[in-house]
Structure formats: C-alpha cells, structure tokens
C-alpha cells in the first residue's frame, strides 16, 4: 500500500493528467453528470509444481484504461488495453453514449485535480510479491512439495503453486479527484492427495495475502502449509459421511467468516439496498442477528488481501459497522449508489480490473469476538457438527438461499469431538441465519490469505473473519440418514 513513490509511477507517465482531463471531458460531452478514468498496470507471475516437477513459470501483464460516464442511475463504460491516446479517446466517446438522450450541454473539463489524502492502513517494506526472485519462489514451492510428501506415506500426489500480483492504479474523476494506489498480493497454495486402498481424498492449505516476504520465511513456512494440507487429506481417509438434517453446528474461527460474508454481507451492499432487491433495505434499526453479534467491514486490516488505502473509485477505505449488538446500523456504499441515495461513500467501490466498472463490494468482513471459550462452545453441544475447514460458499442475494462446502468437520457427541466427517454442506437462508447464533467465542481471527469474491462476473480479493460460533440449528447436507 505505499504511495510515496506513486507520483513518478509508470502510470503517471502513461496517463498524464492532461490526457485524463481530456478523457473526462469527452466522456461528459453528451451531458453525463459524472465521469471517471481508471488506469491500471498489473504484473501477475506464477510457478506451479505437479508430480514433483516444476510444470512452468508464467508472467502476464494486464494494462489499460477504463472510462465511465454516469447519468442519473445509468452507467456507460468502455476500456482500451494499453495507453494509446487514440484508443482511450474512442473508449471515452463510447462511454459518453450513455447520455445520448440528454438535453444538457457538454460538461467541460474537470476542476484542477487534487490528490486524495488518505493514510495507508499498513506499510509493506519488502513485499513477497516484489522482493522474491524466481529462485526464492521455486525454493518455496519445492520445500512445500517435499514436506507434504514426507508428512505421511499415504500422500500420493502433491500440487503446489506460488502466485503474485503487483498492481498499481490511478483514478481521476470529474469532481477533480486524483488518487493512486498499489497492491502487492502473493499466495502459496498446497493440495495434497492421500490414497489408501480404494479411498482417495484431497486436502488444501494456503498462505499469503498482502504480506512481507518474511510471512513465508517465518510465520507461514511452506513446511507448515504443506503439513496442514497433508494432515487434512490423511484425516479425510478415515472420515464418515455426515448425517443429513437440521441440528446444532459450531463453525471455526477465521475462514469460517465466509458465512457472514455470503449470508449477510452481500445483502448489505449499496446497489441491492438502493434497488430494494435486498431484504435488508427496510431493516435499518431492526434486529437482524442474535444479541451480542456485531458485524464489521473494514478495508484497513493489516496484511489482508482485502485491504487498501483507497478503493477503485479513489475513496479512502474505512471501518464500517453494519450490525451492532444484533441491530442493523449501516450499509456499504460505492460512489454511484451513495450519490443516488444521499449517503456518504464508505470506500467499497471496487472493480476486478480496468475492464470492469466499479460495483459495491465488501473488503474484510467479520463478526466481533464474544466471551465464550471455543472449547466450551463445543462442549455445550450434545449432538452436532464442528466445521473445522470450510471450502467455497455462495448466496443468491435475491432470495437469500446460501450454501457452503465443509471440507473438514467433526461429529460432536456429548460435547466431545468423536470422528472426522467429510462432504458436509451447510445450507440455509441469509434472512434469518444470523439470528440462530447462540454462542460467540473470544477467539476472533481474520483470514486475509486466500479469499476471492465473485459478483456479476467480477472477482476481487477479500478477507473474512469471525470467532468460533455456535448456531442452534443449520441444515447439514449429507448422505447418511439418522
């Protein structure tokens, strides 16, 4: 997130202020009230290992400029790869067509740009994305492979990848805002396959985020990540199928927060609130979660993938409380939806790249800790499921139906973990899921390592978090019938 050297960045040279101002004027030539220009340069690298071999190294450059024009609640958008002024002017003219019926006269150039003043949530001194060379990256990948294989004789195959993204962007708009930021992300992913007789199971683990290189050399070494993936695969060999039905469930801290992201966070995004398609639009001030539940979204969590100094519209990131002690107190806003509803933007306008216009999106979303010990939460369940590792999750924002894949779970009998469980799916409806929380652990963890959230085909890095939580009842999908 450092911004000190941004003034002389490649982007400032590729997209000079005079050109940005010209593009904004072109985009507003038909009378659009607002326009912005977003330039981006991103370098993506990866090394992958399969079957003990370095399969390939890859390098990709993504660079270009997107121009947006807004008239009322309507958006016109076009982009060009690269920075050739002629192509950018054409993009601006295409975006301007959104205001094709407008009677208004051309809006003219923006006021002189002033650089957005926003503090970085944290500073990276030697980010893994920029400071590791090829040899260092290959060393991480090979060490993970060796460690996973050495963990257990039943580990038959291992896949490892190490990927980095080094991205910088500049945003300028018709209000005269000028902002630049960058993001350095890196991620180590290990998948281990365990075989025993006819049984075949896979375990995953990952490390990374917006982290220093030291993250991989001291905090989350490739050996630690590999051991976690291998242990999970081996454990699943002896796991049983879950019992289908609705019963008490305890969900792990950290990545377990993917539940609050899916089944609550999406319904708090300003676009769905403005359009009234979210059930939450009419619930300000009402109880939407159990007492004691406080839900926060903040783009300022240190070292998380979901954090930034300014969002992709140039608004500074902030901490936004969505639910306080079970009561809905605030929503997430991007520029467009905030403007149309008279709210203040909360720094949640995000886009996958210059090829997409911004949407209202979460950053890092979590449930604040309570006072219960995680052990006590498990001990309090006579019969239920402890979800230790969750996989992917999804929600239909219109009807609230959600589901999560549980990659590693344990059966709880009389307050004790009795045996591992595989292939469980949690299903429910976001409208009421947060009301079923009846125990809140003290062990908040925010996982900013690996999450990506999809919306309208745009993928963005996010963080999720929670303490260990007990739900009085969730539908658990499985093949066993009790």
């Amino acid at each position: 997130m450092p911004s000190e050297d941004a003034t002389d960045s490649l982007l400032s040279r590729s997209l000079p202020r005079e050109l940005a101002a010209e593009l904004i004027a072109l985009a507003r030539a038909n009378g659009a009230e607002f326009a912005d220009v977003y330039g981006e340069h991103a370098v993506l690298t990866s090394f992958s290992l399969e079957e003990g071999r370095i399969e390939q190294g890859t390098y990709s450059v993504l660079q270009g400029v997107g121009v947006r024009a807004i008239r009322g609640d309507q958006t016109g958008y076009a982009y060009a790869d690269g920075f050739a002024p002629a192509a950018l002017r054409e993009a601006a003219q295409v975006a301007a067509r959104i205001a094709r019926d407008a009677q208004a006269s051309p809006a003219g150039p923006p006021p002189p740009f002033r650089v957005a003043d926003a503090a970085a949530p944290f500073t990276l001194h030697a980010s893994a994305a920029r400071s590791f060379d090829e040899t260092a990256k290959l060393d991480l990948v090979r060490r993970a492979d060796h460690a996973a294989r050495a963990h257990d004789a039943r580990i038959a195959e291992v896949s490892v990848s190490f990927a980095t993204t080094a991205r910088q962007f500049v945003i300028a708009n018709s209000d005269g805002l000028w902002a630049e930021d960058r993001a350095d992300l890196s991620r180590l992913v290990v998948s281990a396959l365990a075989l025993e007789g006819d049984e075949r199971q896979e375990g995953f683990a990952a490390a990374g985020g917006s982290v220093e290189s030291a993250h991989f050399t001291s905090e989350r070494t490739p050996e630690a990540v590999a051991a976690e993936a291998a242990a999970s695969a081996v454990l699943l060999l002896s796991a049983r199928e879950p019992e289908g039905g609705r019963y008490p469930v305890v969900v792990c801290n950290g990545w377990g927060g993917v539940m609050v992201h899916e089944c609550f966070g999406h319904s708090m995004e300003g676009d769905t609130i403005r359009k009234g398609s979210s059930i939450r639009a009419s619930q300000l001030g009402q109880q939407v979660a159990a007492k004691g539940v406080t839900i926060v979204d903040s783009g300022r969590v240190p070292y998380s993938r979901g954090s930034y100094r300014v969002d992709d519209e140039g608004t500074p990131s902030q901490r936004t409380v969505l639910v306080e002690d079970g009561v809905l107190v605030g929503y997430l806003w991007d520029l467009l939806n905030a403007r149309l509803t008279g709210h203040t933007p909360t720094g949640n306008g995000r886009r996958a790249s210059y090829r997409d216009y911004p949407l209202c999106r979460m950053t890092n979303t979590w449930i604040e800790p309570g006072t219960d010990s995680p052990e006590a939460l498990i001990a309090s369940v006579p019969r239920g499921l402890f979800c230790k590792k969750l996989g992917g999750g999804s929600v239909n924002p219109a009807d609230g139906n959600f589901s999560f894949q549980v990659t590693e779970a344990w059966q709880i009998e009389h307050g004790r973990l009795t045996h591992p469980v595989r292939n469980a799916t949690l299903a429910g409806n976001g409208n009421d899921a947060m009301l079923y929380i009846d125990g809140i652990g003290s062990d908040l963890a925010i996982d900013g390592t690996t999450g990506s959230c999809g919306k309208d085909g745009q993928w963005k890095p996010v963080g999720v978090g929670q303490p260990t939580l007990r739900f009085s009842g969730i539908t658990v999908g499985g093949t066993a019938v009790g």
Partner: protein
Amino acid sequence: MSARPTPAELQSLTEQAVALARAAGAEVADACAEGSRAFTVRVHGGGIESLKQSGTLGIGVRAIVGGAVGFASGTDTSREGLADLAARAVALARFATPDEARGAPTPAEAGESPADDLDLFDPAAADLDVERKIAMALELERIALAHDARVTRSAGSAVSSAQGTFAIANSHGLARAWQGTSVSAWVVALAEDGVKQQTGVHGMARRHLADLPTMESIAREAARRAVARVGARTVPTARVPVVMHPDIAASWLAEMYDAMTADALVQKRSWLEGREGTLVASNLVNIVDDGRLVRGLGSSPYDGEGVPTRRNVLVDAGVFRGFAHDHYHARRLGTRSTGNGSRGFASTPGIGYHNLCIARGATPVSELIARIDRGFYYDDSGSFGFNPVTGDYSFQAQGMWIEKGERVHPVDGVTVAGNSLQMLRDIVAVGDDLEWRGAVASPSLSISEMTVSGS
C-alpha cells in the same frame, strides 16, 4: 491493431511471436492470440442500467527449452511488446523441470480439419445494433413483470453480443485461425411470497441471432420459475427418487468432466481411474463431447493447439470409453490428442470440453415425474458442493415435492447428496428434453435414490 482483427491479421501476429521466441532461444515455441469485441446492455426498472463495450486483443507466448516450459502473455502487440514476451517466456523456461513430452503438434500430426462448415460466425450477431439490444433487454424485463401479478420486480435483464477471433501458431509451421460470434439474453424475475423473494432466472446464448429464442419465451420462463417457487418450504430428511432439471444435470456433468481428463488421471485425481472400458453408468447414459456441432457455442474447427476437433464419445451405453487428451498428455501416455487442447491467450494449454452433453433419451419429463410415488423434482442449486477427486455430490437445492406422480408443493431449505458413480448407475430414465443453452447440456434425468436433507 484493433480489437476486431481479421483471422489473417491475428495469424500474422502469432507467427511473428513464434519467430521472436525461436530467435530468443526457444527450441519449440507456440503463440496464441485472441481478439474480441463485446457490447452488453443491462436494464433494470424499465430503464438502462449500463452500456458496456469490451474489446481486448491479447497474445501469449510459450517457449520450450530442453523440454522445460516458460510462458508470458500481455496485450502489447507491438513488435517490441512481442519481443519482450518472447524473451520472458524463454527466460522463465530455465526454471521449469525438463519433460520430454512437452511440445507442440506438427501440421502432419495435427491433421487438417474436415471441410464441414461449423457456421460459427453470424454477421447479424456481430453487427447487432445497440438500440436493438436495448429494446430486447427492455422487452425481457417488461414481459417477465407482466407475466403474473406475483412477479413484483426484476433483478435486471441483459442482452449481449460478441465476436471473437482466435489464432494459434507454432514453430513446426502449424498455423490456424478462425472466428465466431455469440449473442445472449437473460432476465431475473423476482416473485413476492409474503415471507421472502423468490428468484426465477432464465437465459440463452447462441452463435446466430436468428437462433435466439424470442425474448417473450425467455422472459416467461424466468417468470414461471419465480412464481413456481412461491410458498416453498422444507421437507423431512429422506432417501427418495430425484428428477434433475436439465440445468441441474448439465451443471453436474460439467463438474464430472474433470475426472474424464488425462490431466486428472496422471495426477491420480480421477475417480474414473482404472474404469476405462467398464460400465460406470446405467446403460441409458451416453456422454458425448462434440467439437463439431454446427453453430455450437463450444465448437471450433481446431482446438487450442491447432488439432482438428472431433466428436468424442466419453460414455457409450454406460461404458466409459476413455479420457480426454491434449497434445502433452497424449504424448505422455502414448496416444493421440482427442482435440481437447483448451487455451486462451493468457494461459498455457489445458484439457477442456467443446460441446459436452448427456445424449437425449426417450422419456418425456412428465412421464419421469408421473412414475414417482414420493420424491423430489430438483431444479435449482447452490454453487459449491462437488468433490472433484471423489465425485461426492452435496448441494443446497430447491425444487418441487412429488407425491403420487404429481408436483405438489415448492421446496427450499434442503440439500441433495450422493456420489457421482452411484448416481450415474442409478439413472433409471433419461428425458427427451435436451436443449443447448451454453456449451454443456443434458436432458432431465431420473435418479432412483439420493439423500434429501431438510428438517
């Protein structure tokens, strides 16, 4: 160069990139370029929500040095840009492990595509006017809202048209290029049932504008789906027969495809390992991947490595015929590519399907339901719940409860679970309602028993 390059222009770019990679030290090199132009109209609440034009021209260069692979991609197609990608790909190859099976097909190995016309390019789709797209999207939403009083709002509609050009060249002298179009339309209808909103989504994509169903038929189907869900409730947990809607069956098929690839096989990730030539499904089941379906959304004359596509039968009357291969896996396993090398400009080749389907059966869907005394008609699901390594299946589900051969009430708040191998064997009837809506399709399927978990 514009984002609407001709196949010949794109071909020339790939040949330049290959020559530069060879000059930079690659023993074998290939390059893949894509140019695309799309325009999407989104409508909400009776007005335009957004107009978006997309246009990209990108190229990826793969260099093989001593059997080791390096790859670089980008969108700068100037000579300097291409030379930079070529140099980076060659430099990265030094870090990979040599593997003698790595390579690219010679023109003789690859062969020529048959002369049959796949009819992938429609000028009417390529030139579909923006105003016409706006009118189509407005019509979609208007008809969905007017269909039934319980449909109170929409979550939006969209109409999109696109054209794309693809070129591949390698240092053995192979060079191929082709182009295609697509046009798509979808709408999301929302119905109010007093407790919550219910969703009905329907959409269609076609290569040719003339093949796109009417906006009215798409809108009415979306509205019907939303209204059918009104009053949905959960059911007690039970093992019951399940009838899968074509959309659900097609999603399941797409999830299963990974296990049918040589990539999964060599990595020991396939639950079909060791089952070639054996019965893996009911003898009613035929699974076909056809790269040569006329006007098919997944059709192309050649695959991403320049090998002619073909019609591959993966499962024949329940018997698994074998794994899909790209050039690398075919070389490694001593066989021929099945024409399933799949590639975009920003990636190296992998294995992918073209037009994948469970073949049409003989039973009308009404008959599938009429035969069930007590069971679940399954027509909507969550996104996650498939284990690619084991074939285990467990999804959040919605649909209708079936009693005595009739759909009696809508259901939500349940999950449906089973194992793919068992599910394939338990298919007791295949519907006659196969319809292509994308590159994967299936008719309705009747499965004798799955676990429906509810209250």
